[in-house]
């Protein structure tokens, strides 16, 4: 009933597009990518051309949907009962899809790429000891700072909360904000604020997927984030993913916490890289940051499953993956040890321009990076260390989409709410939503 009712047009369109290829005996794989950066799309198109040449009788249809609408696009396909093949989804959704049994295991692909040991940390989405997705974009948020402003103020890059707050306060003026930090009620703020929770030796979920938000350390982290927002530009209260980096690039902020602050800068103004530094991973009770992800998976019911797997393998071969990294080194770090080795001798302009920032500072932060999707309860709250629990958390998507922790921070920052009370309320509301999500997931 539902299948018939929702967007039949999508089904027809999909059939119309893919139909002619099937009738000619061509294995067509639809690759739904969230990449819209023209330089990266160019690399993807070159891959398609090469893949089709090397694999006669196949075709790859590249379909781009920005990260803000990729979930809607996937849902539309699922609800319409239309064919979905390879997807490039956000990590929360891929965890939900894997938990719901909609993705196909990719262990054979991983084996052909050198086995699990050949992959770097947090690159494989593993559920019940089966790999369901490969992380193509393991970006790590770090503090990028303006060297000139820090030098003029006699400041060193911050290493802990106290120094961070001091730097933001010292550098803040009418002309330049101390820090470009998202304060909107959205996923960006939630992710960034979660980093502060980890740095305070706490976590929002334990390894049994219980919610831990209502805790004094979470409230302290929220209060710290709210305090930093005082030194952000005045409209930070509505900021999401794009605004912090725009603010930093435009010279309106002295620091920014971001994944790939320099990738576009390099392409648009290479000389700027020398003026920007990447600070060490900041900590309070412990050092920690996040690891982003754009996960590649293939739908279990894809009619061209084997070709889809071949396409995934093709994208992750060291030579092909290196091409992507060379275009956007911070957003697309290598996923395998082999790709990392291939990049060491790279002559690409981006690799040279970044100098030692990539290998020795940015990518070197990997041991401090937490993937909250792959390892629920990654923070050992007793020892204040990072651990690998290998418990995939499908409810991070609820945390990210409900924006309740972000709202708690807004209440503290802009309404002067008590941090403990704001966080407790967010916990209560989030728990209700997680209970509903658990009930829905249990049926699948």
């Amino acid at each position, binding site marked *: 009933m539902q299948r018939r009712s929702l967007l039949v047009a999508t089904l027809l369109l999909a059939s119309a597009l893919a139909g002619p290829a099937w009738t000619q005996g061509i294995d067509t794989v639809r690759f739904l990518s969230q990449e819209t950066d023209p330089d990266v799309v160019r690399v993807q198109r070159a891959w398609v051309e090469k893949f089709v040449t090397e694999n006669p009788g196949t075709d790859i249809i590249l379909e781009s949907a920005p990260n803000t609408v990729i979930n809607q696009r996937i849902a539309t396909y699922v609800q319409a009962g239309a064919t979905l093949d390879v997807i490039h989804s956000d990590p929360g959704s891929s965890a939900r899809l894997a938990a719901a049994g909609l993705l196909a295991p990719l262990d054979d692909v991983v084996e052909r790429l050198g086995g699990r040991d050949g992959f770097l940390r947090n690159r494989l989405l593993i559920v019940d000891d089966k790999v369901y997705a490969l992380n193509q974009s393991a970006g790590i948020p770090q503090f990028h700072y303006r060297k000139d402003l820090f030098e003029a103020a006699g400041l060193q890059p911050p290493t802990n909360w106290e120094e961070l707050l001091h730097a933001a306060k010292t550098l803040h003026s009418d002309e330049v904000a101390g820090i470009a930090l998202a304060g909107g009620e959205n996923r960006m703020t939630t992710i960034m604020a979660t980093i502060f929770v980890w740095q305070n030796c706490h976590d929002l979920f334990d390894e049994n997927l219980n919610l831990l938000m209502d805790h004094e350390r979470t409230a302290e982290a929220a209060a710290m984030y709210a305090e930093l927002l005082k030194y952000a530009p*005045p409209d930070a209260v509505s900021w999401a993913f794009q605004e912090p980096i725009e603010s930093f690039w435009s010279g309106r902020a002295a620091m920014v916490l971001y994944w790939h602050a320099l990738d576009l800068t390099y392409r648009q103004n290479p000389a700027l890289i020398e003026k920007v530094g990447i600070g060490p991973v900041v900590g309070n009770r412990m050092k920690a940051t996040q690891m982003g992800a754009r996960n590649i998976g293939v739908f279990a019911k894809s009619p061209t499953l084997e070709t889809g797997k071949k396409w995934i393998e093709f994208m992750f071969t060291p030579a092909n993956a290196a091409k992507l990294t060379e275009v956007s080194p911070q957003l697309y770090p290598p996923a395998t040890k082999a790709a990392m080795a291939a990049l060491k001798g790279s002559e690409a302009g981006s690799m040279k321009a970044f100098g030692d920032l990539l290998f020795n500072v940015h990518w070197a932060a990997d041991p401090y990076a937490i993937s909250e999707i792959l390892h629920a309860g990654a923070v050992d709250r007793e020892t204040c260390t990072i651990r690998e629990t290998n418990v995939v958390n499908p409810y991070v998507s609820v945390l990210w989409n409900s924006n309740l922790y972000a709202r708690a921070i*807004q209440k503290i920052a802009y309404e002067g709410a008590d941090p403990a009370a704001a966080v407790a309320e967010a916990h209560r509301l989030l728990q209700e939503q997680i209970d509903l999500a658990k009930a829905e997931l249990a049926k699948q």
Partner: protein
Amino acid sequence: MSASYRVAMAAAESRPRRLSRWREDHDRFVGFLLLMPLVALILGLTVYPIGQVMHLSMQQQGLFSTEQTFVGLANFQNVLEHEAFTRSVKNSFTFAFGSLSLQMAIGLAVALLLNRQFPLRTPIRGAMLFSYLVPYVVAALTWRFMFSDATGILNYFIRASGLPIAPSPFGSIDWSMFGVIMVNTWKNFPFMVLVFLAQLQTIDQELYEAAAVDGATTFQQFWNITLPSLLPIMLVVGMLRTIWNFNNFEVVFLLTQGGPLGRTETLPLLIYRFVFGEFSLGRGAALAVIVFGILVSMSIVYWILYERMQDRLR
């Protein structure tokens, strides 16, 4: 007159009647056939989707699943108990009627001006339509860009002038609702101008001349002639714009995404949050049904007012 003659006459008289009845039936049948495509369209594009949403509102279904479980009215209960529901209802009414009031006031003022004779009236009337022709996405992003802290020209002037308003209304807790209403008004007031201007041109000028002879002031002429003539059309466009404003998603989503602190989260955004944020098609559908009910109720009120107005004018 023979009996056979009478029978023949009666048959001759009844033939056109039968023919006429056959024609009537035939015409009715053809009319019915011609209506069929429209009926099918309405059933397929309006009635069926509404029925589907009502059906979905009583199911539990995830975003990435086609499995449904009947849950009765549980989704409605979840929606009504949701922390954002009451706030979103209030925001929706503020946004819808705030926009409507401003659109009507500005639309009426501009229409009255454009109804006068002055040089370059025609090109100015055309230019006035500009904001209505701009797509919502372009309008919203342009306003947002102009108020951006990093690059916004308006933000720069507000900061430089020291005006006691937020440099970016969309990022201000106190000014965000005003900001989204302002952009929605800017985008849609030409619709009001068009409708009011068309109605103003139907008012008999002799009424104004007679009123002027009787010594009526400009305001008295407006109050006693112009406004009563505009009231029926004001109710109709008021109803349409209320529905459109109430359902508006683009302006608020593109400018504030419902923030800050839920200050601009309207019901359409909450539906979006249920479906794509909390991955629940059932709750999204339940809220859509509630919104449908609110809009139908408001339409009935408007319709009753319109009928009363028409009765009074008759």
